[in-house]
């Protein structure tokens, strides 16, 4: 199958917006994976360590690898090519391929098509540098594009049926990623070019090098590994509605939202998808806009979506306050931000979600409509030494499980499931305080001599506390105390903390947990 490969050398740097005359490299695992022409002129090659690259060119700029950024930047180029030819496959960010049969005939031959694609990609990328190769099969076309980069040729077209002859002088190490070990072995056997590899008998190659050797031999003979798989264009996940005349009543807008929700869910259903996060966006005549993301761990239904749109608009339009819009709503847009395959919902054996749960969920979503998604949270307890650090607040509707922690998984594998919760030396024992202050509530702790009590470097008090004033209040006598319990966290790191904690019981029955950090007493919690 005739195939065209458009390849943009060192795409990560183009995606990062670095001009070719600046020496810069992209590193992955401390090895150079891409370099600008300026950096290459200084002798920097792929595979060098960061230190080696900096030794060759001390002024080289190092850019962090970001696959997401590369893919996002590549998307306009793919879309531009898709407007010329159908069935474009994205190999990686910076490389795309397509079958040339139809487009070549339409645009007047392989060379003309290749020129056109090259220009299109250059325009979309905003700079020149795209290389295009055409050949029988993707392997030949890819090599042709790379050969063009070496020979400073923008387009290399390998004629029909000439692939094997064209490939013959190429060295075996251009078989590509995954074949490095095999290529190394072949070179040591004295097989240096693809032509020599292709001439070996198939049974001998298969017998000695297995399936991988056989595939390599097929590639060397100009046959293809597999056919081009076309990318399916992303379905329209966004449903807008222009409102003319502008709406200023919630009911009318909610009615429109209902039909939008129906439309969006119909589109998703056609793709076999279910939305787990939907953004509802409203804009007014004066350009004010309000976007709110709604998440649901099950799938959102049309009725639920319309209800949420209504709550959101209710919270925006319905109440006169600083943030309310000054004009009617002109645009309403529903966008599915996160989708998953719609594999239905498995109800529990005894009837699934209780009615009370649904009622509660509706009430919480209603409050989220008033206050925003962070307005309603539930708490998840985790590790930590301080009482505030042990609590993680999760917005209602988000997943309460913590993100997968590879360290924890490894620990579990190493030591078994019982070792999941690590110990936290330095935690204060006994019951937890019923009120936990985040920070900023200061306290004054005085000794019997009227001087402030301090904690020295060895974790000892300068004197026994005898009176305490909380947040600038009246001084109260201490009737009992214990501590200090020093904690030194992450001392090896700049974000480390050193503090000491003290429990005090005051004469009027109040009990507090105090914490001293950087020479200052604060109230961590109150046992009330």
């Amino acid at each position, binding site marked *: 199958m005739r195939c065209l490969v458009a390849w943009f050398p060192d795409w990560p740097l183009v995606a990062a917006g670095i001009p070719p005359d600046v020496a810069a490299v992209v590193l992955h695992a401390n090895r150079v994976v891409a370099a600008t022409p300026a950096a290459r002129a200084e002798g920097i090659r792929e595979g060098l360590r960061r230190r080696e690259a900096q030794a060759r060119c001390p002024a080289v700029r190092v850019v962090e690898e970001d696959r997401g950024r590369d893919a996002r930047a590549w998307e306009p180029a793919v879309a531009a090519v898709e407007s010329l030819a159908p069935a474009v496959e994205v190999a990686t960010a910076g490389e795309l391929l397509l079958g040339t049969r139809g487009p070549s005939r339409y645009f007047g031959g392989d060379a003309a098509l290749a020129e056109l694609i090259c220009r299109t990609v250059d325009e979309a990328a905003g700079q020149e540098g795209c290389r295009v190769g055409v050949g029988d099969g993707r392997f030949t076309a890819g090599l042709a594009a790379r050969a063009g980069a070496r020979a400073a040729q923008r387009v290399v077209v390998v004629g029909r049926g000439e692939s094997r002859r064209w490939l013959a002088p190429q060295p075996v190490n251009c078989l590509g990623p995954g074949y490095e070990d095999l290529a190394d072995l072949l070179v040591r056997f004295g097989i240096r070019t693809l032509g020599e590899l292709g001439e070996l008998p198939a049974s001998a190659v298969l017998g000695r090098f297995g399936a991988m050797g056989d595939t390599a031999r097929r590639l060397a003979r100009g046959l293809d590994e597999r056919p081009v798989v076309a990318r399916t264009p992303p379905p329209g996940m966004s449903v807008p509605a222009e409102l003319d005349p502008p709406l200023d009543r919630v009911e009318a807008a909610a009615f429109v939202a209902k039909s939008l929700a129906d439309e969006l869910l119909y589109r998703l259903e056609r793709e076999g998808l279910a939305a787990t996060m939907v953004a509802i966006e409203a804009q007014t005549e004066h350009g004010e806009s309000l976007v709110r993301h709604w998440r649901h761990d099950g799938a959102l239904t049309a009725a639920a979506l319309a209800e949420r749109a209504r709550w959101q608009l209710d919270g925006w339009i319905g*109440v006169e*306050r600083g943030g309310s819009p000054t004009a009617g709503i002109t645009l309403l847009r529903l966008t599915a931000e996160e989708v998953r395959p719609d594999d239905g919902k498995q109800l529990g054996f005894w009837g699934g979600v*209780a009615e*009370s*749960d649904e*009622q*509660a*969920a*509706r*009430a*919480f979503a*209603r*409050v989220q409509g*008033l*206050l925003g998604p962070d*307005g*309603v*949270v*539930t*708490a*998840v*307890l985790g590790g930590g030494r301080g*009482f505030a650090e*042990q*609590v993680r*607040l999760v917005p*209602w509707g988000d997943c*309460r499980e913590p993100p997968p922690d590879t360290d924890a998984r490894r620990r579990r594998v190493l030591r078994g499931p019982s070792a999941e919760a690590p110990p936290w030396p330095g935690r*204060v*024992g*006994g*019951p*937890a*305080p*019923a*009120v*936990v*202050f*985040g920070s900023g509530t200061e306290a004054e702790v005085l000794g019997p001599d009227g001087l402030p009590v301090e904690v020295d470097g060895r974790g000892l008090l300068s004197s*026994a506390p005898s009176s305490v004033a909380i947040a600038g209040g009246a001084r109260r006598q201490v009737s*009992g*105390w*214990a501590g200090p319990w020093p904690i030194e966290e992450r001392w090896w790191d700049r974000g480390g903390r050193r503090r000491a904690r003290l*429990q005090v*019981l005051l004469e*009027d*029955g*109040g*009990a507090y947990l105090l914490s001293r950090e950087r020479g200052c007493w604060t109230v961590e*919690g109150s*046992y*009330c």
Partner: protein
Amino acid sequence: MKGALEAAVAKGRPVAMAGTRRLEVHGALGGLFPAGGLQRGSVVEVGGGAAVSLSLALAAGVMPAGSSRWAAAVGFPSLGLVAAAQLGVPLDRLALVPAPGGRWAEVVAALADGVDLLLVRPPAGLRASDARRLAARARERGVVLVPVRQGASSRWPESPDLRLEAAPGEWMGLGTGHGCLRRRRIEVALSGRREPGGRPRSMEIWLPGPAGVAVVSAEAPAPEPFTPAPPEALTAVG
């Protein structure tokens, strides 16, 4: 004889009535309430030095393990959630609205539709008319509204159905320079419009008790004696 009669009456009481009309409380507190639990649709103000712990203990009683009830706490930015978990509150069924801002009344009214117990901290300057409306809403929806009073500013402007006063009690376990806070005995006093007939108006409970939960004072265990580590015998060296 009287005890047996009472037991028979308790058995014969329709289960649906008990389940729908009142919310059970922690066993330690049951004897205090006129109906043996929290009357659905009532306003129960909790105040005093141990108000937060006591309201968390109420929530833990309303939501025993495996129940399908929900609670919400509005306006507590610094609620001790570790303490809540220790007292037995299921944190996945306790929704928190830490900062309702100027929309406090709206938020409380919206939550009244979905939860069974609503812990609220009334903002300073709450109007009596708002409080009356919320109380009416709670009555209509069968929600127990628990305003928690911390200081004078967060007072419920209307007179509540019941008022629980938890005096800051006596802590055990903390010495001067040793030990740590272990358990506390508090006295809970009950007053209000629905006078408890012939029942104790106040009782002593342990909150937190030995395992973090509230227990009645009669069941209080003997305090563990403090045993200092035996001094190590000196041995001659060198």
